[in-house]
């Protein structure tokens, strides 16, 4: 039985996604270079890394605001809604599939449909990333871009230090998310089919 093709990723979403991915890459590379800068040698010259990190951060922010707005207007936000009743059970079912079912060729417990774009684990991770971590990394990023806006002293510690700590921890978690996200994109019909979908819009 041949599965019917679904048009799941409209143009605005694909543009947002790839712009987001590109900015993520720039921010990770420049961010790492800044964090591990040294006299003996730095991956990217400090001032250049600062410049591109700032530019990419601003583009990412605009892109995020666009995503929130477009999600609201287009109705795409329905895919992110979590129904709490039975959610832990659904999470476990999906988790079991990834650690066992996929190896024994079980059918996907929550296959993609017009009504369900994300499986429960995807939904949870995307909600956490887009609506918790992205705001945190954007707000702390602007705190570092405009250091005078930070509280000077928080319980004897520099406020800007705490802002940066939150920024780099969130940045690290988002980097890990990106690696895992790319790996899970190989779970399509073929290794490259999900990547192709994000270019064509058709799943």
């Amino acid at each position, binding site marked *: 039985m041949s599965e019917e093709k679904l048009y799941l990723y409209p143009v605005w979403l694909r543009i947002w996604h790839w712009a987001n991915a590109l900015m993520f890459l720039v921010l990770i590379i420049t961010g790492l270079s800044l964090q591990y800068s040294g006299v003996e040698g730095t991956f990217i010259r400090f001032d250049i890394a600062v410049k591109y990190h700032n530019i990419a951060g601003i583009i990412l922010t605009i892109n995020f605001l666009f995503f929130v707005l477009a999600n609201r207007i287009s109705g795409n936000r329905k895919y992110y809604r979590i129904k709490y009743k039975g959610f832990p059970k659904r999470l476990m079912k999906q988790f079991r599939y990834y650690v066992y079912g996929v190896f024994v060729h079980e059918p996907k417990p929550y296959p993609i449909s017009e009504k369900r774009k994300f499986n429960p684990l995807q939904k949870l991770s995307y909600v956490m990333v887009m609506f918790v971590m992205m705001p945190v990394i954007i707000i702390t990023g602007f705190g570092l871009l405009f250091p005078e806006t930070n509280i000077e002293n928080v319980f004897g*510690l520099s406020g800007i230090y705490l802002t940066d700590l939150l920024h780099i921890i969130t940045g690290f978690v988002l980097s890990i998310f990106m690696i895992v996200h790319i790996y899970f994109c190989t779970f399509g019909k073929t290794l490259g089919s999900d990547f192709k979908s994000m270019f064509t819009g058709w799943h």
Partner: protein
Amino acid sequence: MLVLFNGYGQDDAVEERVYDYAGENHKCFKCHGHKTFHYYNDQMGQEVRERMNPYYIVDSSEFYTSNHWNFSCFDCHSYEYENFPHPNELRFEQLPACLDCHGGDDTYEDRNWEQINDEFLKSVHSTKHSIDFNCNMCHDPHTYKINARTNENIKQTIQYDNGICLSCHANINKYQLIVDFVNPNVLKTHDWLPNQALHWQNVRCIECHAEIKEDMLISHNIQPKEKAVRKCVECHSQNSLLLASLYKHQVKESRSKYGFFNAAIMNNSYIIGANRNYYLNLISLIIFGLVVVGIGIHGTIRIIKK
């Protein structure tokens, strides 16, 4: 003799001081401590009130909290100043240089006065301006007080020390005492510096403009502008040069018990690249490694079971 409790403006240390020369100095301060002074003019037969030359005013409260707080004015100035009007020839009085007192001073051996002088003679302040530039240009003997080694509030030290540089470099009246050219605009010459205001609140001018000497708390060899620090990573790195300058007095260990590199800096400020946490670095590497290994194993099993 005057006894006062003096807050000294630093920390909360309150020490009892006995001002041996307060009475004697009062004779000077009653005129030179105010914007106006008055005297009886015999010829006119009346009391006259005049304005004091602003450059000859010494704030007594600043003087009594300065390093020279227990000095008599006559320790440096001629006794003939006791007479009023002051004799004209006193305008040409040669004042003592710092080393006249501090040279070979065993009491403050650790201050390395002679070495400070040697370093100063190598600096642009001395090589460009010869004897016109003396210690007093930066260290007003009436008001100067040490900060870096006594004040635990780094921000106050930074503000005080930068104020010394800006008293010339942002004040054309004083600047042109020794040079004819127009005072360079420090805001403009430093416009390449990102977050300029933040940098100036958190580091002293000398961090970038003075040569760092391991055996000196404050280097006095101000370098030509071409040699000033311009590479961000000289501060924004784990081996931040600030540890050898601004935080030199506070650096006792390279890593605190919580695992922070350069913890001395962290209590007062935060410098990207210089403040890293050993444990966070380790945890992030472990997590990253586990994710990569996990994906590798998962992917391999998927291929095998295909």
